[in-house]
């Protein structure tokens, strides 16, 4: 069921072409820097500021509605955040230079080689999201901080350590990329076993060693491959392929990692809370989330963390335990827990899509006006500055959200069944858990 896209010479040469990639990078980097500038120097009114509108409405819509579900980590391939640091680290923008600059080039500590830090950074961003999403200066500070941190880490550590272990966005893109119908894989693992120098990992004059610290020969899921195409350039045996495949192909093999399991809970829980806070009619809740540093905000923070890190995992653990009891299975509870958490990937993705549909369709009108007047200084570059706000397709919203959520439940249910078959545990309680979570989301959105 896989189809190799790189079998077409045109596709392969486009993907290998550094100039094309550089062009896309420059456009992205220019947009990113412009967003930071407009955040610092533009109007403080969020829905009139390019930084807020283009990052949190336009970029977010493209990311969560199109890029992640259909192309996995494709955003990471064009993301501008690691570029300045990577160029400094490499001492080059295009091909590898003859002489590499001498930075510290340290290995990331073994103890931190997981996504717990990404879970932490995402949770932090989520806790402050009411402010970040609505205040241009704060958005600009967060974006600038990310780029500076990425530069700093590139000077100290090897490869793209920031993307792989710190970036709050990279963590959930990696999680949901497992569901996408696109992958980078080797064509024949045997070729990799006999390859002596492994230039895909260590680099060669043709290209850099994997910036994501991944050996493509051992790649079994999309989570940690950033689709940067370096291995496509360096493989001397033409053994790297970009394939289309069925949705959720990676989820057949359940995860064994607790950090990945918790990423699934954090994302699922955050989608439910966001639906309540941002799209619900409860003003007190919105103010509590917005009033950072107040007693109300601490209450909100405590409830948020208790929900995503306590209640959801505990209820899920109970469901897995009941499933074990139903089948009298001997599989360890921890292994069963992490394995079944894989089934929450489609549910979480669809929760985010359902939430984002509402958020994006009602606020998309701001894109046109901020395009003409990005700083809110009264410009009218394209004649669209005074376009009145109007929500789009609100009559289709509820059926669309229902379809997405019910589809997500079907998808998760089937994934849970496959996991159950794999570890010989009844998936029924996990399916009941997912159904109840879907009820909650329906209640909040409809």
């Amino acid at each position, binding site marked *: 069921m896989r189809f190799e896209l790189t079998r077409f010479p045109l596709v392969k040469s486009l993907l290998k072409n550094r100039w094309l990639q550089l062009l896309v990078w420059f456009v992205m980097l220019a947009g990113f820097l412009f967003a930071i500038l407009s955040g610092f120097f533009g109007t403080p009114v*969020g829905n009139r500021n390019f930084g807020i509108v283009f990052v949190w409405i336009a970029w977010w819509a493209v990311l969560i509605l199109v890029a992640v579900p259909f192309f996995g980590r494709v955003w990471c391939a064009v993301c501008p955040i690691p570029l300045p640091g990577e160029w400094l680290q490499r001492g080059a923008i295009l091909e590898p230079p003859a002489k590499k600059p001498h930075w510290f080039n340290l290995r990331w500590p073994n103890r931190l080689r997981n996504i717990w830090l990404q879970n932490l950074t995402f949770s932090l961003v989520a806790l402050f999201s009411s402010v970040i999403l609505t205040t241009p200066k704060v958005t600009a500070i967060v974006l600038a901080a990310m780029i500076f941190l990425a530069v700093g880490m590139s000077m100290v550590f090897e490869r793209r350590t920031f993307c792989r272990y710190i970036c709050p966005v990279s963590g959930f893109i990696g999680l949901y990329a497992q569901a996408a119908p696109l992958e980078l894989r080797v064509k024949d693992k045997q070729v990799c076993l006999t390859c002596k120098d492994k230039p895909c990992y260590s680099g060669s004059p043709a290209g850099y060693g994997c910036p994501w610290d991944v050996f493509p020969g051992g790649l079994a899921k999309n989570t940690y491959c950033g689709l940067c195409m370096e291995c496509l350039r360096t493989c001397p045996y033409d053994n790297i392929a970009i394939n289309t495949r069925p949705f959720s192909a990676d989820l057949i093999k359940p995860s064994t990692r607790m950090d990945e399991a918790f990423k699934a809970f954090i994302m699922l829980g955050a989608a439910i809370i966001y639906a309540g806070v941002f799209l619900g009619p409860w*003003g007190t809740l919105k103010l509590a989330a917005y009033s950072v540093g107040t007693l109300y905000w601490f209450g909100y923070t405590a409830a948020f963390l208790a929900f995503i890190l306590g209640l959801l995992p505990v209820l899920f653990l109970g469901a897995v335990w009941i499933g074990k009891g139903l*089948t009298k299975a001997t599989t360890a509870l921890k292994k069963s827990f992490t394995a079944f958490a894989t089934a929450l990937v489609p549910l979480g993705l669809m929760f985010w899509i359902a939430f984002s549909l509402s958020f994006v369709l009602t606020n998309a009108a701001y894109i046109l006006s901020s395009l003409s007047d990005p700083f809110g200084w009264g410009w009218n570059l394209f004649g669209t500055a005074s376009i009145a706000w109007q929500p789009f397709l609100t009559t289709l919203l509820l059926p669309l959200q229902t379809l997405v959520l019910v589809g997500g439940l079907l998808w998760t249910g089937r994934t849970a069944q496959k996991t159950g078959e794999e570890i010989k545990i009844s998936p029924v309680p996990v399916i009941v858990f997912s159904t109840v979570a879907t009820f909650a989301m329906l209640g909040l959105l409809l």
Partner: protein
Amino acid sequence: MSRKQWIIGFLVLLAGAVIVFAPLPVHAALHTQRTIRVEASQFAYSPAVLDVNPGDTVTIELVSTDVVHGLYLDGYGVSVTADPGQTARLTFAADRSGSYLFRCNVTCGALHPFMIGKIQVGRNTWLWRAIALTVLAALVILIQHPTVPKAQAG
């Protein structure tokens, strides 16, 4: 796909179509003229959830207690703007059943895009249909693949 699976698939689609499109009994209620006072302040409406009957003629008296606020009603496409301290009126016939969001349509501060309220015209039938669809989906998963595997050996 086997013949049995085709039949099950057809029945599920049929059940789904019935859930989505079947007409529900309408509770006859007197159509009345309703006037509801709604206070708007950063970034909430009070009351935030309004209940009216289908067919009612509804007048919303919007009163802003701080800055200029608006009220745009999804699904009906009508709106009104209120200056601080002044009452603005919006009258419409609630002739479409269901749950509709209303939101501020005048930039009023940081959380403006999330200043949202809800009006329920009769019962929120779409929510119940969606819940029924969810139950159907859960049943389909369990019936299509009734997996309670046997205990793992060893």
